[in-house]
């Protein structure tokens, strides 16, 4: 009898869940797994303390400690060299006042001598007092000219807006984070709010750093993180010159530290649009998905020479009246403007430009921004406040 019971028990098939139940359980478990991934990836629990931002001057000091003979040039390696940009003779004409910003004991540093207006190459474009007009702004340190090209007026089919920017002091070309601080997990505000907080005269969206965890972030002379993913990286130095490092040209943080020495701004999005001769790259589309390379609203920054830059925003996603610009068309805009370097920032629904408290382009959708590129009088601006806070902390 006992033997029979045992045999019956062994023969009884194990209770099995139906296939449908198994699939549902697996799918739910996958969702849970993705949730766990998101928790840690975006650090939603705040487990990983954010590294302290490093002022670039301190970064340069740490590079000097690591490397006995520091140099701004990149180490020789089989990797491609960065695109040469600023001619040295013009860079030397550009006054550099950044060194007074991040020093540990600012009071002991001599005040920077005000540069006589006549010494600056673009002094004829400035005015003694700040003056706003419908098409621009000028002051002692800044000249901004806004040009809008309607459908059929410019070199592409879509309307676009160009802010031609001249700054005597590179500190006037700034970046500003939503919330007034670096928030890697994402925080956005309307562009007009960001402009008001930062004292911006003209502003456009930046590289949307919070949606690109692998991007390098160095803003207003303070390093927040090194690039980790493959970007062309735009570096604006404190002498006003620009270098765009092609993707994969630098791998290690130590080499990035050298590349970022004396950097004032770093943006990571891309691609770089113009070659060393100021002509658009032929294979721009190669590294992009067609949906990205095709016509879209676009934002980009162009570089002519130290002290002279431009911001360009192309409207798009509005039928035939504003189809947007493909990546090649966007590069052709900068080529037509005569830029030496040009760099694509975040586009699509993010693209927008505002001047004097008004949005002057036609954004394709409502969207808050985590960061903006802006021009402001340095005194009282967002970067100035950051520098003041850093001084108080130190």
């Amino acid at each position, binding site marked *: 009898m006992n033997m029979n019971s045992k045999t019956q028990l062994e023969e009884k098939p194990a209770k099995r869940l139906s296939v449908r139940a198994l699939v549902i*359980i697996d799918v739910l*478990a996958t969702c849970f797994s*993705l949730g766990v*991934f998101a928790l840690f990836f975006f650090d939603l629990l705040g487990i990983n303390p954010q590294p302290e931002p490093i002022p670039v001057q301190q970064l340069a000091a740490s590079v000097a400690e690591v490397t006995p003979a520091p140099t701004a040039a990149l180490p020789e390696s089989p990797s491609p060299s960065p695109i040469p940009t600023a001619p040295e003779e013009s860079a030397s004409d550009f006054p550099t006042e950044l060194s007074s910003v991040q020093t540990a004991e600012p009071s002991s540093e001599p005040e920077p001598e005000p540069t006589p207006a006549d010494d600056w190459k673009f002094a004829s474009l400035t005015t003694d007092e700040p003056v706003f007009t419908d098409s621009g702004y000028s002051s002692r340190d800044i000249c901004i000219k806004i040009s809008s090209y309607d459908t059929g007026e410019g070199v592409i089919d879509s309307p676009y807006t160009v802010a031609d920017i001249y700054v005597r002091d590179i500190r006037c070309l700034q970046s500003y984070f939503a919330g007034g601080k670096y928030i890697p997990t994402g925080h956005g505000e309307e562009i007009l709010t960001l402009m008001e907080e930062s004292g911006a005269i003209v502003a456009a969206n930046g590289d949307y750093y919070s949606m690109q965890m692998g991007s390098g972030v160095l803003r207003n002379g303070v390093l927040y993180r090194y690039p*980790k993913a493959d970007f062309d990286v735009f570096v604006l130095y404190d002498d006003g010159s620009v270098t765009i490092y092609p993707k994969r040209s630098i791998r290690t943080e130590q080499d990035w530290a050298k590349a970022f020495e004396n950097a004032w701004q770093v943006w990571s999005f891309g691609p770089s649009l113009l070659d060393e001769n100021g002509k658009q790259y032929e294979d721009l589309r190669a590294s992009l*998905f067609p949906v990205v390379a095709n016509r879209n609203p676009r934002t980009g920054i162009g570089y002519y020479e130290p002290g002279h830059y431009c911001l360009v925003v192309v409207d798009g996603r509005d039928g035939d009246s504003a189809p947007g610009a493909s990546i090649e068309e966007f590069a052709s805009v900068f080529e037509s403007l005569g830029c030496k370097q040009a760099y694509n920032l975040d586009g699509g629904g993010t693209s927008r430009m505002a001047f004097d408290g008004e949005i002057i382009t036609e954004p394709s959708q409502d969207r808050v921004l985590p960061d903006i590129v802006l021009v402001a009088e340095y005194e009282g601006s967002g970067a100035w406040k950051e520098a003041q806070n850093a001084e108080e902390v130190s």
Partner: protein
Amino acid sequence: MLRRILPHICIVLSLTVLVLLILNLYNPFMGFLSSAVSICFLFALCLSALATAILLVWTDRRK
């Protein structure tokens, strides 16, 4: 018990990594596959796949 759970762990981890791969295709700048968390998931997938395979081979040989 382990023999029954391991294949499902494999399925769940594979689907998770597959989702990350697709996300990475659309936005490589986010670094979905290069972060420490992603590497942990990939490592776990490798281990579970290995364990499942070994169990399968072992069971097969005992039959």
